[in-house]
């Protein structure tokens, strides 16, 4: 940065700081309008940093400043400093001065904006589990068909004996949010534990069964594995590329409605776990753990 520009910018800053906001806003509405317009111009009429708050403005014939999105303090600062730069005979919108043309997205940008994490975690995991022979494209197409089916499927009738997870919304919501639908179905049937078998530890060559807790990802994986098994046993109605995804989707609906056999599997695992939980403090395990 050449020294001259340095001085100028510091001067701009000082001036910008010197001007207090109420003055610009209240005392000089015209000025503010100008600023607002300037802001818009500065962002080349792009609405990148717009906040959803809508200011009350009825006059829509012209581009009324009050229509502009206003997260005020910073914007006024920007506009003012730009004005000062104009006063000093610099190009305020010079890219080399501030390296953007249309305003900057506020950082950190949300995680689903990352190329590798664009899909919801559950959807991603399920897609990978659907995948066979590394054919990801096919798996993704199947997943889209599943979600489409869930959207069109009629509102599920919940079974009170098979309660869904805590965060599950009202059943009317589910078809309108297929990803939530999927997540609810899977998290509801996801087992909390698995049974580990220690070979020959129970004596007489019998395996010692010990319950072990599962992490979230493991639980989901197990649950979807069960769902896929159940879907494999189904007979598909139609033909063509929709056969498999529709079977899976039907199974998911069945899970949410509490009709699926997956619930039994979960129940079995939990029962077994409670039965063998005494083995947790078995002396033979002490040697291992």
């Amino acid at each position, binding site marked *: 940065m050449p020294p001259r520009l340095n001085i100028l910018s510091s001067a701009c800053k000082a001036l910008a700081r010197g001007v207090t906001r109420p003055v610009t806003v209240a005392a000089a509405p015209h000025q503010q309008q100008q600023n607002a317009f300037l802001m818009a111009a500065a962002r080349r009429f792009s609405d990148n940093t717009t906040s959803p708050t809508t200011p009350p403005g009825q006059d829509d014939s012209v581009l009324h400043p009050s229509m502009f999105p206003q997260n005020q303090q910073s914007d006024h600062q920007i506009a003012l400093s730009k004005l000062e730069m104009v006063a000093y005979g610099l190009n305020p919108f010079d*890219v080399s001065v501030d390296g953007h*043309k249309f305003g*900057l997205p506020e950082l950190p940008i949300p995680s689903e904006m*990352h*190329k590798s994490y664009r899909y919801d975690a559950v959807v991603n995991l399920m897609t990978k589990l659907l995948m066979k022979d590394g054919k990801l494209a096919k798996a*993704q197409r199947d997943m889209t068909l599943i979600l489409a089916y869930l959207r069109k499927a009629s509102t599920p009738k919940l079974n009170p004996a098979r309660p869904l997870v805590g965060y599950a919304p009202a059943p009317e919501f589910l078809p309108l949010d297929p990803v939530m639908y999927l997540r609810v179905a899977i998290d509801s049937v996801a087992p909390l534990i698995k049974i580990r078998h220690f070979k020959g530890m129970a004596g007489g060559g019998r395996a010692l069964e010990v319950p072990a807790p599962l992490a979230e990802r493991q639980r989901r994986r197990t649950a979807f594995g069960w769902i896929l098994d159940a879907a494999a046993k189904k007979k598909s109605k139609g033909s063509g590329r929709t056969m498999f995804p529709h079977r899976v989707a039907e199974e998911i609906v069945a899970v949410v409605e509490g009709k699926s056999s997956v619930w039994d599997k979960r129940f079995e695992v939990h029962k077994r776990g409670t039965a063998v939980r005494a083995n947790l403090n078995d002396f033979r395990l002490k040697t291992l753990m």
Partner: protein
Amino acid sequence: MASTTRHGLTSALRGVPKTLYTRQTQSLQQQFQSLRLSESAAVTNGCRCLTTEAIKAAPEVDLEALKTRKVHEVRHARAIPASPGYFSRVAKFNDTYIALEKLLAQYGNLPTIPATEVERVQWRTYSDFATGVGEKIRLIDYKRCLAIVKRLNQIHPKLKPAVVKTALESFKREIQAYKNVPKPIPIDKFGRALGVGKRKSSSARAFLVEGNGEVLVNGKTLAEYFGRVHDRESAIWALHATGRADKYNVWARVDGGGTTGQAEALTLAISKALMAHEPALKPALRRAGCVTRDPRRVERKKHGHLKARKSPTWVKR
């Protein structure tokens, strides 16, 4: 007669100009200057070797000189080492260290610039330097040495004397990683920036120009070129993540590889071009995963394997 010839030979080997001999005022010390170890050779082949710099052909024997000179002066010559530290354990290192200290004492009071302002230099590592010198240097000594070097390096570039610069040169690595900075992408007179991206075995060149969100890949629209929505999305991900999808037009040439590779090569190409237009977007693009080139390639097939890792089935006998 015989002695004269031998003398001529030796003098030739030493490559000492004949004037030395003709002039009577020539000291043994001077003679043995010619016997000193040459730094460069020592550095290159890392061992102490007795070399004469620039082997010249023997000068023509002129008989007058032979007649006039008294030969017995140089007959009983003993080698006297050039450096006083010759018989110490790490002679060369000591010399350099002493030289550095002298430099510091001499120029230490020149105005310096803060260490953050100094242009970054990669100094030679301990092992590198030690092998280069060919002496068993202690690490601590080398550290001390480097401290001086860095201090000298802080001298204001405008005022830094040439001797200091030359002295520092021997401590710099041959390859300075900080020197290779990528060339900034220019924006041509049509307002285009050309970004190049690669992925797997595909490569893409994307011209990015301000526009209204049209994309042409090899002359086709995005939908015509990429059958898969996922690929289309990843192709323009840089624009999508920064909310520029409706602000720019893309005209791209892609070749090699498959659809995924081409799409993600485009991602990289477009994001580079976008950074040329708007440098301030780099952090955002980094967080969107559009800046780093994905180095993964197909793993090579190995001999004795059917594929990269698959080995043939074991057969008994």
